[in-house]
């Protein structure tokens, strides 16, 4: 038996986190905060994976969550590299202004 709240409650929190992160990605213009909101979305997905892993009594969900963590670290590495590159060129840190990929 799972003590305390059932898996559905964890899934509710995961859904709310994912929606919050999606809202942040859509509405914020600072690339740093867009990256942070992406992290919230990834963490919501991680919580759902781990809740289902506990529900099924199967380890694949936890393995998947650890892989998501590694991919998030890689994403932050490249994203922060881009932010530093943008800052070095003295461009505005605004994702609306950075709509083209020309150097």
């Amino acid at each position, binding site marked *: 038996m799972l003590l305390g709240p*059932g898996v559905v409650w964890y899934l509710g929190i995961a859904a709310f986190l994912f929606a919050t992160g999606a809202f942040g990605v859509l509405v914020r213009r600072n690339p740093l905060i867009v990256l942070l909101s992406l992290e919230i979305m990834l963490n919501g997905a991680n919580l759902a994976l781990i809740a289902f892993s506990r529900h099924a009594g199967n380890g694949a969900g936890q393995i998947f969550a650890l892989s998501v963590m590694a991919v998030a670290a890689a994403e932050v590495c490249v994203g922060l590299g881009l932010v530093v*590159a943008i800052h070095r060129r003295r461009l505005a840190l605004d994702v609306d202004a950075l709509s083209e990929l020309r150097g």
Partner: protein
Amino acid sequence: MLAITAGGVVVWAVWVIAGFACLASGLAVVSFTNPFYSALALIGNLGSLAVLYLLLSAEFVAAAQVLVYAGAVMVMFLFVTAYVGPRHEPPWAGGPSWKTLAAVLAAGAIFVEIIVAIGLTAGGRLRTSPEVGSVFGSPAWIGRLFLTDHLLAFEITSIVLLVAAIGGVILGSHTRRAVRGEMG
């Protein structure tokens, strides 16, 4: 029976506190104007998520969450935020625009869709979860899974991290050369 009930109450209390902290810090990340405070709120979010992972008997993932995410990744975030410098960008500058409204609608639609999907497909089956042994979620168990059933995912993860590290180095060195070229 009484002991089980008391344990259930404690777990409920911890769940309510951690869940509330999780939701509140998530909203704080999105709505703070200063990225530095947003990053600090995300550290709180990751910590409360680690508590929820512990309640779901995923001990190793909780430890990795605190060490890797709240430790390494967020320190990098805070360094870059400090390097870029403080800049205040109010999230809802100039009143509610149609963009903000559309974002609220889209996020609300995602939330409602997920809740409806959970409620429709697995409302009854998700009520009880089976018993798991004490080995569930322990580091030795995760390690054995990674080196037997999920070996390919383990190896691919290492390649992804290597490529990301190379990409970070190339991004840094390339812009340094370009900036020097513009100056000279």
